[in-house]
C-alpha cells in the first residue's frame, strides 16, 4: 500500500486502520471514505432495554400525578408509547415493554391501587388486550425493521461494489489496481489486505503477495488451496480455519487469476454480507486482471506485427538489392553458355556455380534474419513427402553432382502437415551439408518414414563422410559456427537455420551416426492424420 493510513483514536489498537479516517481531500478515496463503512449495525439490545425501562418509568411517574379517573387515558398513552418504541427497538424489548406496561398499569392505576389484583373482570380483559397489542405490534414492526435492514445492507453492498468498480476502472495497470483495491477493502472492512496475481500455467507455481509481511509463510498453503479450488479458505471458513488471514481467490469463468488475502483484527468477525462482498470484489478483480492480460497480449501482438513489418521491409530491400544483380549475372551466364558453349564451356559453368552459391547464401542470410526477428510464421499445409524431397534435390542438383543419391520413402509414409518451403529449406541445407563435408564419390541418402508408429514422421539425411566429432554436436547448431575441417566457403548458418525452422514447425533435429560409418541428421516432424478420402 502506498498511502499511510493515519491511526484513529477510536480504534482498539493503533495497528488497525478504522473506517472513519479521512484521507486527503480531493482524492478519489476521500469520496469513497464518505460512504458509510460497510459494517451492518448489530442491534445493541442493552441500550434498547434501557430505553424501554426509561420511557415506561417516566410515563408511570407522570401518571401518578394525574387523577385516578384518568386510568383509561393512561392505558392509551402506554399503548401509544409501545407503538412509538417499536419503531426504535427490537422484538424482545417490545415484548418486555408489553409485559411491563400491563403490570404497571394494573399495579398503579387500576383499582385496587398498588395491588396486582383487579376488582372488575373487564379490567383483566383490558390488561390482556394491552399485552396482546404490544406483542403484535412488536412482531410486525420487528419484521418491517428486518426487511429495512436487509435492504440497507443490499444498498450498502451495491454502493460499495459500485465504488470499488469505479475506482478500479480508473486505475492504470495492475500495480495501481492492486493498490486501489486493497485500500478500498481495508477502509470498508477495517482490515489489512494484500493481493497476489498468479497464473496456473506458470511453473513452479508461486503466490507472491504484494505485501508479503501480511501473509505468514505457514499460511501460504491456505492461499494456494483457495487458488486451486476457487473457494475461499483460511479464517472464517471451514478450510484452514486456524489461519489468521482470510483468502479469497480471484475467479472468473472457472479460471483463477490470483488470491486476495484479508486480515481482520483479532476478535472481529466477517459477516455473511461482508464475505459476499469480498467475493464480489474478487470477481471484479479477476475481470480486471483478465482484461489486463488481454491488453498485454494484444500489445505483444502489435509489437510482433511491427517487427514483422520491419522484417518484410528489410527482406524486400535486401532481396531486391542482392538478387537483382544476381539475376542479371545468372541470366547472362545462362545465355553465354548457350551461345558460346563450344568456346568457353567451363567459364560459364564456373560463373553459374558461383552465382548459385551466392543465391543460396543470400537465401540463408534472409532466413536467419526471419528466425531472429521472430517473424517466422509457418504456413501449414498437407505436403507430399515425395514432392518435398524432389523439390529439395532439384534445387541443388549441381552440388550433389559428385555424390550418388539414394532416396528411400517408406511405403506407409503419410502426407506431412508442414510448411512446404521451410521443410524444403531444411532438406536442402541437410543435403548440402552432407555433400559439402564428404569426399566426392561417397553416397548420400535421404530416408523418409513414420517414426514411433503414428507419432511423428522423419526425414534422415545420411552420408559416408567423417561423421561429427561428439564434442562439437551442440556447437554445430549455433549461428556462424563451421565444422572443423570444413571446406572453404559457407557462413555456418545451414544447421542453425535447420534447427530454427524445425522448431518453428513443432519438430526437432537430431545428429547421429550412420550405421557403418558417416553422419546422419534426422528431422522429426509431428504426424497428423490427413483427410485422404475426399468426396467424389
Amino acid at each position: 500500500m502506498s498511502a499511510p493510513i493515519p491511526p484513529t483514536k477510536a480504534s482498539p489498537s493503533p495497528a488497525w486502520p478504522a473506517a472513519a479516517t479521512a484521507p486527503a481531500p480531493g482524492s478519489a478515496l476521500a469520496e469513497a471514505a464518505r460512504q458509510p463503512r460497510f459494517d451492518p449495525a448489530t442491534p445493541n439490545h442493552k441500550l434498547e432495554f434501557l430505553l424501554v425501562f426509561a420511557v415506561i418509568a417516566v410515563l408511570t411517574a407522570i401518571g401518578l400525578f394525574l387523577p385516578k379517573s384518568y386510568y383509561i387515558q393512561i392505558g392509551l398513552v402506554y399503548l401509544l408509547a409501545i407503538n412509538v418504541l417499536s419503531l426504535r427497538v427490537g422484538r424482545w424489548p417490545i415484548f418486555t415493554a408489553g409485559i411491563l406496561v400491563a403490570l404497571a398499569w394494573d399495579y398503579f392505576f387500576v383499582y385496587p391501587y398498588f395491588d396486582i389484583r383487579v376488582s372488575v373482570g373487564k379490567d383483566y380483559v383490558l390488561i390482556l388486550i394491552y399485552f396482546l397489542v404490544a406483542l403484535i405490534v412488536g412482531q410486525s414492526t420487528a419484521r418491517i425493521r428486518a426487511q429495512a435492514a436487509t435492504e440497507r445492507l443490499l444498498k450498502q453492498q451495491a454502493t460499495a461494489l459500485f465504488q470499488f468498480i469505479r475506482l478500479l476502472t480508473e486505475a492504470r495497470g495492475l500495480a495501481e489496481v492492486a493498490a486501489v483495491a486493497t485500500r478500498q477493502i481495508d477502509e470498508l472492512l477495517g482490515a489489512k489486505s494484500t493481493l497476489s496475481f498468479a497464473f496456473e500455467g506458470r511453473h513452479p507455481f508461486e503466490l507472491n503477495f504484494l505485501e508479503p509481511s501480511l501473509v505468514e509463510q505457514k499460511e501460504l498453503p491456505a492461499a494456494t488451496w483457495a487458488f486451486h479450488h476457487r473457494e475461499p479458505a483460511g479464517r472464517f471458513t471451514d478450510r484452514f480455519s486456524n489461519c489468521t488471514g482470510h483468502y479469497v481467490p480471484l475467479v472468473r469463468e472457472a479460471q483463477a487469476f490470483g488470491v486476495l488475502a484479508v486480515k481482520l483484527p483479532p476478535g472481529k468477525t466477517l459477516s455473511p454480507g461482508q464475505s459476499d462482498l469480498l467475493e464480489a470484489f474478487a470477481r471484479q478483480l479477476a475481470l480486471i486482471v483478465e482484461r489486463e492480460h488481454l491488453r498485454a497480449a494484444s500489445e505483444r501482438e502489435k509489437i510482433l506485427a511491427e517487427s514483422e513489418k520491419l522484417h518484410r521491409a528489410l527482406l524486400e530491400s535486401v532481396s531486391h538489392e542482392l538478387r537483382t544483380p544476381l539475376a542479371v549475372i545468372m541470366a547472362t551466364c545462362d545465355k553465354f553458355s548457350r551461345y558460346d558453349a563450344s568456346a568457353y564451356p567451363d567459364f560459364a559453368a564456373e560463373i553459374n556455380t558461383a552465382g548459385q552459391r551466392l543465391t543460396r547464401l543470400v537465401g540463408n542470410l534472409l532466413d536467419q534474419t526471419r528466425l531472429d526477428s521472430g517473424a517466422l510464421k509457418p504456413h501449414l499445409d498437407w505436403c507430399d513427402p515425395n514432392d518435398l524431397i524432389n523439390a529439395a534435390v532439384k534445387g541443388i542438383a549441381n552440388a550433389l553432382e559428385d555424390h550418388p543419391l539414394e532416396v528411400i520413402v517408406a511405403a506407409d509414409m503419410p502426407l506431412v502437415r508442414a510448411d512446404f518451403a521451410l521443410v524444403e529449406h531444411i532438406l536442402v541445407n541437410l543435403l548440402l551439408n552432407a555433400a559439402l563435408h564428404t569426399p566426392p564419390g561417397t553416397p548420400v541418402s535421404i530416408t523418409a518414414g513414420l517414426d514411433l508408429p503414428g507419432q511423428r514422421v522423419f526425414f534422415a539425411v545420411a552420408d559416408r563422410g567423417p561423421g561429427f566429432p561428439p564434442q562439437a554436436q551442440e556447437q554445430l547448431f549455433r549461428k556462424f559456427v563451421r565444422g572443423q575441417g570444413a571446406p572453404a566457403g559457407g557462413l555456418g548458418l545451414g544447421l542453425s537455420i535447420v534447427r530454427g525452422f524445425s522448431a518453428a514447425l513443432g519438430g526437432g533435429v537430431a545428429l547421429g551416426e550412420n550405421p557403418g560409418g558417416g553422419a546422419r541428421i534426422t528431422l522429426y516432424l509431428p504426424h497428423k492424420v490427413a483427410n485422404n478420402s475426399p468426396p467424389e
Partner: protein
Amino acid sequence: MTANKKGRLLVIDDEVQILRLLRHSLETEGYEVHEAKTGLAGLGKVPSLQPDAIILDLSLPDLDGLKVLARLRESSQVPVLILSVRDSEKDITSALDSGADDYLTKPFRERELLSRVRAILRRTQVVGGVAVVRIGDVEVDATARLVRRAGQEVHLTAKEYAMLLLLVQHRGRVVTHRFILRALWGPEAEEDTGYLRAYIIRLRKKLEANPSDPQYLKTEPGIGYRLVEE
C-alpha cells in the same frame, strides 16, 4: 497479333539490366518488346499498345506491382507474367489470386522464361475444341473423354478426369491449390489441400512412369501444380 511477330509484349520493370536482358532474349525469339520503367507508365501504355502479354515486376519505384495488376485487371484481361525477386509463397499466391497468369522468380533461366511466355500467350490464342492434347506419352482426348498412356487407355474417375482436364486447359501454367479445389469441390473446400494431395498422388500413379519423380505433373511448392507443355 502483328503479322510477322509472334506477339507484342510489354515489360514493366525498373532495372535497366533486366530490361536489356529480357529484350535480347525475347526479340531473339521473335517477340515485339516494349518497355515501361514505372507502374504508371506501364498502365498508360496498355490502351494504345494493346500488348498480347505483360511481364510485370512486383518492386516498382512508384506503385507496388500488385496494385498495378489490380488496376490493369479493372479494364483488361491481357495475360500477365510476374517476374520478381519476391519468392515467398504469400507473395506468389497473392499475385496469382489477384489475376496474374503465372509467376517466375529472379534469378531465372532463359528457357523457363520463354516457356512461361509461350504458355500465357496461348491462353488467348487457344480457341476451344482442340480435340487431342499430347503431353509426352499421355494423350487426352477431350471430345471422347479418353485418356491414353503409351497407347493404353487409362481409367480415371470423374473427379480425376476433371482435375486432369483443368490442368490440361492451363498446361504450361501454374494452377493454384485454391483454384483447383474451388473448381472441383466448390468454394467451401478451398482449404482442404489434403484432398488435393491425395488426388494428385492418384493421378501421378496412373499417368507417370515414376510417380515419385513426376515428369508431367509438377509441384509448385506451396503454390499449386503445373502440367508441362510437351
